[in-house]
């Protein structure tokens, strides 16, 4: 079985703080990590290989420092890693990213399962997975909380998380799946794995190594543009509501929602 896990290196946004005075992101001490959801995808990929045999390949698109994320993937037990790195890939929105990853996977060849985390914790879009599937002409299912089984004939049964429960779906390989944290408990790296990771040679492909349309990659391939980035107004401390209960609750909820605070957002993972 050939398994490709797409991973992204992201800043650890759970540790990011806003400087209250300048209202800017404070990036001191914010590490680069493998996107947490992708760790679950890596674990699932390695488990599938342990169960069914085959190879696990970790694939990532990004600047050269993303090598460290791929080395980490090796220390966990993936067989091969590929870095898609080129200035021409930079500035890609989800459309261009999905296109580039798909072309990279196409170059890898016949793949049975493509895995990735449900979303990256910097972009928070969750759009790349379905985009890659569309580019490759494969079926996809998002929010997988369990791969129940894969049969010899390539039939796969999965459990997909929904807001109000889950649904069991059946399909056939090849398929693309995005995974949620319920799916497994990621393993720790082993020393042997870390030593292998240190020595490993990282394969890197630029835009010339892959068969692609240069118009569809990087900034050029991105229909969406970021116009502005700002820090959301943090609600000023200690707003107290009193009096009529119904009104107080209404006002509180309105205040929360207009500040973008996700109260009542079911199953939002951060």
């Amino acid at each position, binding site marked *: 079985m050939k398994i490709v896990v797409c991973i992204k290196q992201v800043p650890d946004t759970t540790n990011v703080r806003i400087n209250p005075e300048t209202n800017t992101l404070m990036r001191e001490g914010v590490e680069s990590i493998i996107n947490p959801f992708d760790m679950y995808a890596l674990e699932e990929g390695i488990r599938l290989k342990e169960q069914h045999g085959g190879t696990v390949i970790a694939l990532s698109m990004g600047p050269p420092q993303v090598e460290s994320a791929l080395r980490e993937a090796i220390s966990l037990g993936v067989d091969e890693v590929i870095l898609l790195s080129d200035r021409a890939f930079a500035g890609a929105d989800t459309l261009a990213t999905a296109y580039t990853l798909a072309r990279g996977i196409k170059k890898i060849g016949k793949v049975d399962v493509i895995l990735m985390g449900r979303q990256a914790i910097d972009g928070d879009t969750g759009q790349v997975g379905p985009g890659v599937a569309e580019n490759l002409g494969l079926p996809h299912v998002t929010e997988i909380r369990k791969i129940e089984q894969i049969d010899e004939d390539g039939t796969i049964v999965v459990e997909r998380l929904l807001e109000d429960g889950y649904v069991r779906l059946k399909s056939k390989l090849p398929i693309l799946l995005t995974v949620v944290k319920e799916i497994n408990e990621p393993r720790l790296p082993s020393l042997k794995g870390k030593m292998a990771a240190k020595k490993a040679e990282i394969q890197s492909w630029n835009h010339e190594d892959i068969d692609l349309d240069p118009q569809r990659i990087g900034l050029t391939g991105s229909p969406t543009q970021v116009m502005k980035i700002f820090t959301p107004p943090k609600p000023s401390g200690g707003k107290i509501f009193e009096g009529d209960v119904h009104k107080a609750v209404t006002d509180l*909820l309105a205040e929360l929602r207009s500040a973008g605070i996700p109260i009542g*957002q079911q199953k939002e993972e951060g």
Partner: protein
Amino acid sequence: MAEPIQIIGDKCVGCGLCIKVCAYDAVSLVDKKAVLNERCTVCGACVSACKYDAILIERRPFKGQDVENYSGICLFAEHRGGALSSVVYEIIGAARELKASLDKKISAVLLGDKVRDMAEELVSYGVDEVWMMEDPSIGDFNEEIQADLVAKILLDKKPEIFLGGGTIIGRSLLPRVAAKILTGLTADCTELTIDGENRLLRQTRPAFGGNIMATILCNSHRPQMATVRHKVMKAAEPLQGHEGQIQEVSYPILKPRVEVLEFVPEQTDTVNLADADFIVSGGRGLKDPKNFALIEELAKAIGGAVGASRAAVDAGWIPYSHQVGQTGKTVNPTIYVACGISGAIQHLAGMKSSDIIIAINNDPSAPIFNVAHFGIVGSLFDVVPELVKQIQG
């Protein structure tokens, strides 16, 4: 290839603000000028932050659709079990405001089995045209088939804007559509407005785990697509006497490659306190163990875990595993709701790093109000049920 992002040396004053906002450690000061290194992901945060317009991103995206041919505001009418998903009403609300700015028609794409009643409902809420395809073989949970149909409809009907819900389905469906049509999609928008000058859809949404907000434009590709974050925008009310068209459309349906076996509804399961993004805690103010049911209800309504103060645990009202505080668990949720908890130092030690603290207590001088970002002074027996009611909508 030209550098996608550049610092204009003449304009740069070396203030270093770009360095502070860069989450990728890609900027440094060399001879008092900002310099980018290879770690740059072209995210654009520095461009926004620079007060001197010294950083430029060259944007020349590939050729898009003919913008003049696209008109109207379209939305995806997500539904399940014979009813429109609640997010659809929020999208309609947003669409109606966009209509006010753009003065264009609102349309909806409605696919599935026996959906005519919902089509009529859409019209009653202000949708001018429903493009409906009724077919029993368009089932739930098959985004591949739906994306194919949606794309075909959008290519035929050419709305300039297409909106969907930021639900599990929406976030799976719309990206596939966008990749088919080759247009831009912005996820999880909390605000949608029309730019006064260029009449483009301004899509604002949180990123970096909610630490920043980004406003996105899709200049030269159509439709401008966006998913709308659930439970942020106000749901529309029915539009009295509104009339609209229900147009039946038909396209060949792809052979399904994903089959639904069964849907399993959620059972109440214990949510892990340490990992929880939302926590509702109860304290001495609950007065009786059975009142923890209120806490559980509110927790369920916001999708969170149940916590407790030491007082409640010591009184035997709830097991120690729920205790938050110096001798219990330290938690770090996005939202922490403290109900009937006075706010002793030992409790605060376990939860004060929560992003948002909401306190409900009938004692206005309770210390918890000193650390709470929001509070309601009142009886939790009145406030909590009201909160549950309004959140569940």
